[in-house]
């Protein structure tokens, strides 16, 4: 659905997109950083940042000019020695949690972590009840057998 929507959007907007691309892309939109360790950091971060234009893609995947500008920001900030999480925080401060594919624990998102634990506890509790009941039944049956 989303891909189809994005594709029709892209097809419909090729005229506009080509006009947007009459400007050369940002220097670090497609150019990797010279330091392989920094480039690896930048790449890992870019894969977990959402493109604001084609919203189901990461900025590492998207060819939208704005995604290129975001990659340029990420690479220049990492090249300047910024921590990847600081760069993520910089974007989250401007666009909200929404821009990041790696959810952080906050007042809004803690149930994401708490829910599986709560379900696990509930499952153990329910299963204990079941086992107890079947155990009791089992021993009752065994006694019946002895008597019979």
């Amino acid at each position, binding site marked *: *659905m*989303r891909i189809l*929507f994005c594709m029709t959007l892209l097809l419909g907007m090729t005229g*506009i997109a080509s*006009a*947007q691309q*009459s*400007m050369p892309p*940002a220097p670090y939109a497609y150019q990797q950083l010279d330091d392989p360790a920094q480039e690896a950091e930048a790449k890992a971060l870019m894969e977990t940042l959402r493109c*604001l*234009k084609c*919203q*189901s893609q990461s900025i590492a995947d998207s060819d939208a*000019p*704005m995604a290129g*500008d*975001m990659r*340029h*920001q990420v690479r220049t900030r990492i090249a300047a020695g910024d921590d990847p999480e600081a760069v993520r925080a910089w*974007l*989250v*401060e*401007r*666009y*909200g949690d*929404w*821009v990041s594919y790696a959810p952080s624990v906050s007042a809004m998102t803690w149930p994401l972590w708490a829910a599986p634990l709560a379900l696990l506890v509930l499952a153990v509790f329910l299963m204990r009840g079941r086992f107890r009941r079947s155990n009791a039944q089992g021993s009752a049956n065994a006694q019946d057998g002895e008597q019979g």
Partner: protein
Amino acid sequence: MTSWKLWLPFALFLAFFGLVASGLLSPSDQTIESKMIGKPLPAFDLPPAVTDRPALSAADFATGEPKLLNIFASWCVPCIAEAPHLQALADAGATINGVAIRDKPEDIAAFLARNGNPYTKIGADNLSSVQLEIGSSGVPETFVVDGKGVITYQHIGDIRASDVPLLLEKLEEAQ
């Protein structure tokens, strides 16, 4: 076990199915509001975008008078539709500063010659850096900035005739 309890798992399944189906069927693209509203405009200093308008920096907004910051581009089709309404805002006394995204000076000049030029100053943002700084995710967008340089309102998309009074009101509120 009463009969309604028998149906409970099925009802839960239907509720879950409905939730997932509605998520799949509703449009996935959503507007992303800037989280910078209520915060000061981040520092920036853009070069001039055209020869007949001065360059734009964040300091140009902290002058005591509320202003509009309009994100636009010559390649942006809704910007053409928006142009007469921006002019109406300018005619009503609003100061509008433009930020031109990824654009060539000659293209901007041609765009302004054809659609009118309501801008006091225009900065060239060729790397979308100011756009990213203020949490804007598309073109066009319009921000109301008060006289102290604090962002007070964001309008996403092109300004229609019906949006003009609201924006004038927001400018008034930012006084």
